């Protein structure tokens, strides 16, 4: 390419060439300095010459190097047709020029090997220019100071040389491997290399190429080059930085910085993990002893900043030390360049802040270290032009802060639901003092803010939006004419204001994040209720917009359906969750809109569960249930809830809408659904009861529980039950609860009539057991099992007396005995012991009575007993097993049972212990099965009578009409039909079943 260019040196306009170069970086060969063809010695003499006389003449005259060696760098230079008369001949000038050019470029070009580790090393190893070279450079720069062209050309050449060198030798060193272990070190290495390279480039630029012309203005530290008013330096740095920026591999570099920053900032703001030794960050400073701590903490911050500043300053000191200056043209002043003045400004500022910082939380060592590190890295990135000001670093930093916020909230507040919630305050404080401080420190650390220059510089660093705001503010100030007087103060105020604005928005974001966290946790919060009140309090500040409310309801609803509303969850668990949900959401949103929305799913699901009613009623009436029954404790809170009555506000019905005196009236919330029911109070029982519109569902279950309670004890007073029923009447209305009223009344009446009948009939007969009855109005009580059996004769007699008494008391009414209901107090006397069973059932008593009876026989088999008592065999079995478990009966083989008179006998031959429960279950199955069979039989007959002959499949389908569903398999049904056929109820003909013709 170079060869091509050199052939057509003039024909290429500079603009085109620049474009060309920007695409194809200049290769090493094309930028090589002039070959050493010209004898260097010849140049030694002239250098002194151009310094004085030719100064005015030279600038206008540009040497026209027509040779290939420097075509690239002087393509725009057209041969000047008018040589100045008193100047040396054009040829001589040209020769000198080219010789100077050659010397300078030879010296200034970088060797092919990579840079040493730091500027210090470089400076030590690098050779000072020989006098010739220094002169040559001076000739090319200062000598032509008035005419920018040659100087520009040397600068331009240098820029290209730097670019070439950077791309060829530095860039390979900063590549990021796809996999690395120690990201932090890698980042540090890369930054180190880049910084070194940059400082070396700058060092050479400043030392040799750009002379310090305006010495009156104090030069700043090298790292303040972007404030330098030397546009050439700025241009160079810009070009260098852009090359650096573009040679950093894009996703990999951002990722590296992101990861490193995330870890460091995480540690710096007190996230656990990372270094992992910082959990104590919630400790707040208090008082004297801690005061000194925080002071030293501030010192640390300040130290950290100083370190980051010094890391460069020390190197620039070197810069200052080795200034090539033989005639007083100082290129750099070490005193000026170490940045002391700026440093002082910072120090001042830091001291101002000390007051505020004293209140800050205690900083611990690892956090401080990480903080320093962040600032260090950031400063380095700033210098390299990959830092803030809308550049890559800032974006990455923003991402880091974003992630940090989330991580911090998740790490510190997840599962922290104490009440009253301090989370909001903690978070605010953290954002303001820790996160905000870090952000400020990082973004504004390298600039002095209070000096007007710094203000201008910072404007440059701001993102467009920010700078727009800032300039608008200053414009406003100018309009007001107030701040003109003291710009510095105005800036300071603006700064505070700006900070406040930023802080506010950060806090808003933080609250949003916290809200999202809480929404995610909401299910657990509800389950943990009421210990989790704090979590709900946090959420209150989140659900202030329709979007967040929608987010809450959708998230929670899906959590509900995946975590709770599935077959594995017990109904009581679901109900408990629902109750907690009602309570939690009433706190969260007193208007009830959210509750209304989230509870729809759970209500729909509860309606589908078969045992919902049973569980709820048992919960409501838990006081009436015998202790120790499994449901009793489950939802006993419902009983208390019921006791609270109906919230007064709800009783008005729809009338409250018309209450014009209600000054606290407000329209329904905007996000209320169309079927939104206004509910002002917390009414758990009401919500549960409204699951079904039909009240009968409830009353049936209530009656069942009530009857078992009323009949299951021999008390006569049921105050709790009366109270419960009265409370339920408030919910369901008088008429619906009439049945229960009658039941309670029956018991009360029974007490009176029992006493009366017993007195009338003289039932207190010595030697016979006492008998008390409860007289039930059959229609109002749940259906009872009527498994009658023969009660012992004495009892039968007593019953007959009782019946007589009743019939005289209540004319035209008859007693039907429910022999299997009721309890008997049994006392059994054995040879060696007495067994007392205070609450045996009647059938258990009847069975054991058989063994006693007249000493006639003390060995019974189950079928015999069943025959004798006219009792169902299964019931007899159960009774026998009961007595077996009490060590009263034992099996002596062949299903024969006898009484254990002596416990020693038991020891002799331990009887097989069959568990009572299995027998009970069997019994229940058969009971239920029997009923089911009867229903199915009726249905089959009805179906076949009306529908005619039907095949088995069709019968099976039609049986789906049986209330409660039909779950038999076809085999079971076929067997059943066959049995019916044997009984002559159906017949089978031509593949179909039908009713036989009479």
């Amino acid at each position, binding site marked *: 390419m170079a060869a091509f260019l050199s052939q057509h040196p003039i024909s290429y306009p500079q603009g085109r060439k620049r474009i060309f170069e920007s695409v194809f970086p200049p290769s090493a060969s094309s930028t090589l300095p002039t070959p050493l063809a010209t004898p260097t010695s010849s140049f030694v003499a002239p250098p002194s010459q151009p310094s004085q006389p030719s100064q005015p003449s030279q600038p206008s005259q540009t040497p026209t190097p027509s040779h290939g060696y420097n075509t690239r760098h002087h393509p725009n230079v057209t041969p000047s047709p008018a040589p100045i008369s008193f100047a040396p001949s054009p040829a001589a000038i040209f020769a000198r020029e080219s010789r100077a050019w050659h010397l300078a470029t030879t010296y200034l070009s970088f060797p092919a090997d990579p840079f040493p580790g730091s500027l210090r090393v470089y400076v030590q190893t690098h050779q000072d220019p020989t006098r010739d070279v220094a002169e040559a450079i001076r000739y090319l720069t200062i000598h032509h100071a008035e005419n920018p062209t040659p100087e520009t050309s040397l600068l331009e050449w240098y820029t290209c040389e730097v670019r070439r060198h950077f791309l060829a030798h530095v860039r390979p060193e900063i590549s990021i491997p796809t996999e690395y272990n120690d990201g932090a070190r890698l980042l540090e290495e890369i930054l180190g290399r880049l910084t070194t390279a940059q400082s070396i480039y700058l060092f050479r630029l400043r030392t040799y190429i750009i002379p310090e012309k305006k010495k009156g203005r104090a030069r700043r530290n090298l790292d303040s080059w972007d404030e330098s008013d030397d546009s050439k330096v700025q241009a160079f740095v810009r070009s260098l930085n852009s090359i650096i920026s573009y040679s950093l591999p894009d996703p990999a570099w951002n990722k590296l910085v992101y990861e490193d920053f995330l870890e460091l900032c995480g540690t710096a703001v007190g996230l656990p993990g990372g270094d992992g030794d910082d959990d104590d960050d919630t400790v707040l400073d208090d008082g004297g002893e801690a005061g000194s701590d925080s002071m030293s903490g501030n010192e640390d911050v300040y130290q950290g900043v100083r370190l980051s500043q010094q890391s460069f300053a020390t190197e620039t000191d070197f810069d200052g030390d080795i200034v090539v200056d033989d005639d007083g043209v100082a290129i750099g002043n070490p005193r000026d360049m170490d940045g002391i003045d700026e440093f002082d400004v910072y120090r001042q500022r830091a001291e101002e802040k000390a007051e505020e910082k004293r209140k800050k939380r205690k900083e611990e060592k690892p956090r401080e270290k990480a903080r320093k590190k962040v600032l260090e890295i950031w400063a380095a990135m700033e210098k390299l032009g990959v830092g803030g000001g809308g550049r890559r670093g800032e974006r990455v930093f923003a991402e880091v802060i974003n992630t940090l916020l989330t991580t911090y909230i998740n790490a510190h507040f997840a599962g922290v639901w104490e009440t009253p919630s301090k989370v909001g305050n903690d978070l605010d404080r953290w954002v303001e003092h820790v996160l905000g401080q870090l952000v400020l420190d990082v973004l504004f650390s390298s600039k002095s803010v209070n000096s007007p220059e710094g203000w201008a510089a910072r404007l440059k660093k701001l993102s467009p939006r920010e700078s727009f705001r800032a300039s608008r503010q200053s414009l406003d100030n100018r309009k007001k004419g107030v701040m003109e007087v003291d710009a510095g103060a105005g800036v300071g105020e603006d700064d505070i204001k700006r900070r406040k604005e930023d802080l506010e928005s950060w806090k808003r974001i933080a609250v949003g994040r916290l809200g999202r966290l809480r929404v995610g946790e909401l299910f657990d919060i509800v389950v943990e209720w009421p210990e989790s009140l704090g979590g709900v309090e946090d959420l209150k500040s989140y659900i202030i917009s329709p979007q967040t409310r929608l987010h809450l309801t959708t998230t929670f609803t899906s959590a509900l359906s995946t975590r709770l509303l599935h077959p594995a969850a017990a109904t009581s668990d679901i109900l408990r969750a629902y109750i907690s949900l009602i309570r939690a959401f009433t706190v969260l949103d007193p208007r009830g809109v959210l509750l209304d929305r989230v509870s729809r799913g759970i209500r729909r699901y509860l*309606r*589908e*569960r*078969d045992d*919902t*009613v049973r569980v709820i009623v048992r919960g409501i009436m838990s006081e009436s249930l015998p202790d120790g029954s499994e449901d009793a404790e489950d939802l006993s809170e419902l009983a208390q809830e019921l006791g609270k009555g109906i919230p007064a506000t709800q009783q008005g019905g729809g009338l409250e809408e018309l209450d014009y005196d209600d000054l606290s009236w407000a329209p329904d919330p905007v996000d209320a659904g169309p079927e939104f029911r206004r509910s002002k109070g917390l009414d758990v029982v009401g919500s549960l009861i409204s699951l*079904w519109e*039909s009240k*009968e*569902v409830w009353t*049936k*279950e209530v009656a069942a529980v009530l009857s078992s309670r009323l009949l299951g004890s021999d008390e006569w007073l049921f105050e709790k039950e009366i109270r419960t029923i009265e409370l339920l009447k408030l919910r369901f209305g008088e008429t619906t609860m009439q049945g229960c009223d009658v039941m309670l009344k029956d018991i009360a009446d029974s007490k009176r009539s029992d006493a009366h009948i017993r007195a009338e009939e003289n039932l207190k007969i010595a030697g016979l057991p006492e008998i008390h009855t409860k007289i039930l109005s059959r229609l109002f009580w749940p259906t009872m099992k009527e498994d009658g059996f023969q009660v012992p004769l004495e009892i039968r007699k007593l019953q007959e007396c009782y019946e007589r008494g009743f019939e005289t008391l209540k004319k035209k009414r008859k007693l039907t005995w429910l022999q299997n209901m009721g309890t008997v107090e049994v006392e059994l006397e054995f040879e060696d012991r007495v067994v007392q069973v205070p609450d045996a059932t009647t059938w258990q008593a009847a069975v054991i009575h058989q063994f006693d009876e007249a000493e006639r026989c003390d060995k019974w088999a189950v079928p015999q007993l069943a025959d004798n008592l006219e009792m169902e065999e299964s019931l007899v079995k159960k009774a026998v097993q009961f007595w077996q478990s009490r060590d009263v009966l034992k099996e002596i083989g062949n299903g024969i049972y006898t009484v254990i008179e002596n416990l020693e006998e038991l020891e002799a031959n331990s009887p097989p212990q069959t568990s009572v429960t299995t027998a009970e279950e069997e019994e229940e199955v058969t009971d*239920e099965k029997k*009923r*089911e069979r009867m*229903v199915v039989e*009726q*249905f089959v*007959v*009805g*179906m076949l*009578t*009306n*529908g*005619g*002959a039907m095949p088995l499949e069709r019968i099976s*389908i*039609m049986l*789906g*009409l*049986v*209330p*409660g*569903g*039909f779950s038999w398999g076809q085999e079971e049904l076929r067997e059943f039909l066959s049995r019916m056929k044997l009984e002559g109820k159906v017949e089978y003909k031509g593949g*179909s079943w*039908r009713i036989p013709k009479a």
Partner: protein
Amino acid sequence: MAASPYPRGSVPSSPFSPLRSRTHNQICRLQTELMQLMMSTTPGISAFPTDGNLQHWTGTINGPEGTPYESLTFKLSLEFPSNYPMAPPTVLFTTPMFHPNVDMSGRICLDILKDKWSAVYNVQSILLSLQSLLGEPNNKSPLNGQAAELWDKDPKEYKRLLMLRHKEAED
């Protein structure tokens, strides 16, 4: 197995899901009626949903003793309107019938199926009323004039015409 106290939970699982337009109450009512009818087993009357459709039932009546209808069996169809039990079901004899209050296509003239309908009636009471109507026709407003005339005048001819018409539906 007992009539489930939780109607919503139990119905959808059966293949005979009620039509959506039917109200929950109506389904409940018809189910209860069916259960009652099945469990009471009143002799001589019976009914069952046709094809598992709760809105359409088939009924069976045995002719009451001591009437020309003795030992005959009659089938009926019962259609329940969507506002049942506020409105009476449409009842027709599907077995060919010879009766003063029943026309040739099986339509029945019975006050409780028309203007005297009340929601307290149910399938059982309808079937019982029809059974007794067979023995005690209302000859004052006949649908079948010939039958009304013959009922008192010529029981033999009545029976002959009845038997001519009656052809029990074979299964």
